[in-house]
């Protein structure tokens, strides 16, 4: 068999495995596109978690009361934990954490755009925990079915923890929604600011057809729903909850359609997404600067602990 025919056979076997619901594990043969796609997805996801520590982490010193303070520290800690799990899963594909962090800190790698927005009030902590994490869980539940074993396993653990982040966020929002007039207006203002950035999280509509990335991702069961399906699922789920609290979304056209059984909504401004994703958002520079600073200021610690072990091994 020629090399090309052998490769075609490998690809056919690979796709048969995936269609049969089998998992692909580290060391299995896989097409280059599959490997590249997964590295990109997993590392971006990991970057999103560690950059995502910053908008809420900012409020740790100011959290009102013991319960909120402890809960917030634990939540932001979980995000570091999720980043850790995802970087580890990505490393099974032959990329190192040094390489991935280098790409993030040099501005080459992308991460979830939603974290490029500022968190000017305490209410943002609850609203992000509730809205952003709900949208993330809808996406992540799908990813937990991923054909790539390490990604699926990491996602199961992450989904489990994210489901309590949603509850923690919702709990904080309820306290504000039922609170003083100042607390109520703080939380409505926060929802107004986070609504469209959250809708953008599932990616632009693929009405003009799926991108090449997306087509392959769907075929190889890395992704199983379209962006619009995920977004619709989010809106259907969350709008009734928002209204039940006496709050609303900043979209006058948002209404329930009896015929389809879905909530109709206005698309976010996709031009804004392009601008923000390409570095022109309110907090892009600030977030990366903070991560770079932590990385640079911690260098002596990493080097020292590594050197200490090397010295020990030499004398052993």
């Amino acid at each position: 068999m020629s090399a090309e025919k052998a490769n075609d056979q490998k690809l056919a076997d690979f796709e048969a495995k995936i269609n049969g619901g089998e998992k692909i594990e580290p060391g299995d043969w896989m097409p280059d596109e599959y490997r590249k796609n997964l590295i990109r997805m997993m590392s971006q996801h990991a970057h999103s978690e560690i950059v995502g520590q910053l908008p809420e982490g900012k409020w740790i010193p100011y959290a009102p009361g013991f319960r909120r303070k402890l809960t917030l520290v634990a939540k932001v800690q979980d995000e570091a934990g999720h980043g850790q799990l995802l970087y580890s899963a990505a490393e099974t594909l032959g990329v190192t954490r040094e390489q991935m962090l280098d790409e993030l800190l040099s501005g080459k790698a992308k991460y979830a755009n939603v974290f490029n927005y500022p968190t000017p009030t305490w209410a943002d902590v609850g609203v992000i925990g509730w809205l952003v994490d709900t949208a993330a869980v809808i996406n992540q539940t799908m990813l937990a079915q991923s054909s790539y074993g390490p990604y699926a396993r990491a996602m199961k653990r992450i989904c489990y923890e994210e489901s309590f982040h949603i509850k923690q966020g919702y709990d904080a929002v309820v306290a504000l929604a039922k609170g003083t007039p100042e607390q109520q207006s703080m939380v409505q203002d926060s929802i107004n600011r986070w609504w469209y950035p959250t809708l953008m999280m599932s990616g632009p509509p693929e009405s003009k057809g799926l991108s090449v990335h997306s087509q392959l991702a769907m075929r190889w069961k890395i992704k199983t729903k379209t962006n619009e399906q995920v977004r619709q699922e989010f809106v259907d789920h969350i709008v009734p909850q928002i209204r039940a609290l006496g709050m609303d979304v900043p979209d006058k056209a948002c209404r329930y359609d009896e015929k389809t059984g879905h909530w109709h909504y206005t698309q976010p401004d996709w031009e804004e997404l392009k601008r923000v994703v390409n570095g022109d958002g309110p907090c892009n520079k600030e977030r990366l600067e903070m991560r770079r600073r932590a990385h640079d200021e911690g260098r002596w610690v990493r080097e020292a602990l590594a050197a200490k072990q090397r010295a020990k091994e030499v004398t052993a």
Partner: protein
Amino acid sequence: MSDLPAGLPREQLLRYILALADDELMLGHRNSEWTGHSPILEEDIAFSNIAQDELGHSLVWYTLYEQLTGKSPDSMAFERGWQDFSCCRFVTYPRGDFAYTVVRQYLFDEAEYVRLSSFGRSSFPAFKDIAGKLLREEAYHLMHLKGLVTRLGDATDESHRRMQAALDAAFPQSLGIFEKLEGEDALMAAGVFPGNEVSQREWLQRVVPVLASASLKPPVNTQNGTSSINCTPDLGGRQGKHTEHLNHLVDDLQLVYRIAPGAKW
């Protein structure tokens, strides 16, 4: 609300409980500022656990205070003015670099170990119970922090330089943990705890050798097995004499709470 066992001096005891609670609150607050900014992911997660423990410990002490006075932990932590806190100054200072944080945490954890261990013989049953619980979590802190101190102390020129500088700053400050408390004599006479002088001696015996094993030198002279301190201790915290650092810290701590004090958050 519960009563104290007979023979225990109420005023002095309440003052002491607050000092314990205030220490943990401020240190936990400072530690929690590292979440998202630590040198490496795994340490971010580990240090966050320590921060949560310290905040949790302060809550345990404030809860004891509430049982005796009816005043809630949130009201004590989030409504007092900065000059009413009786933490030592040591725990109020900014987090500095990782070396300062590690040295501070290590020195404080050893002090915690000594004072909590002494509560095991306390005439106040609540102290015995609480000490038993907290010591188990503190055991992990000591293991982790000793591990970091002994590695960073002499690993590289830079780590040694930073750790020694951190110790130079932190050691005089740490002596403030053992500042004599108002009413301490009454507490000692009632068997609540053996007093700060005894605790400081025991603490010195523990920290000096560990620091030496990390090639770190505190301002202490050791002759014939006894250590004498060779620096000016940073005192005042137990009497509410704080620096502007605590003013800023409390402004941060209480920022959101003050928007609607007493409201549900």
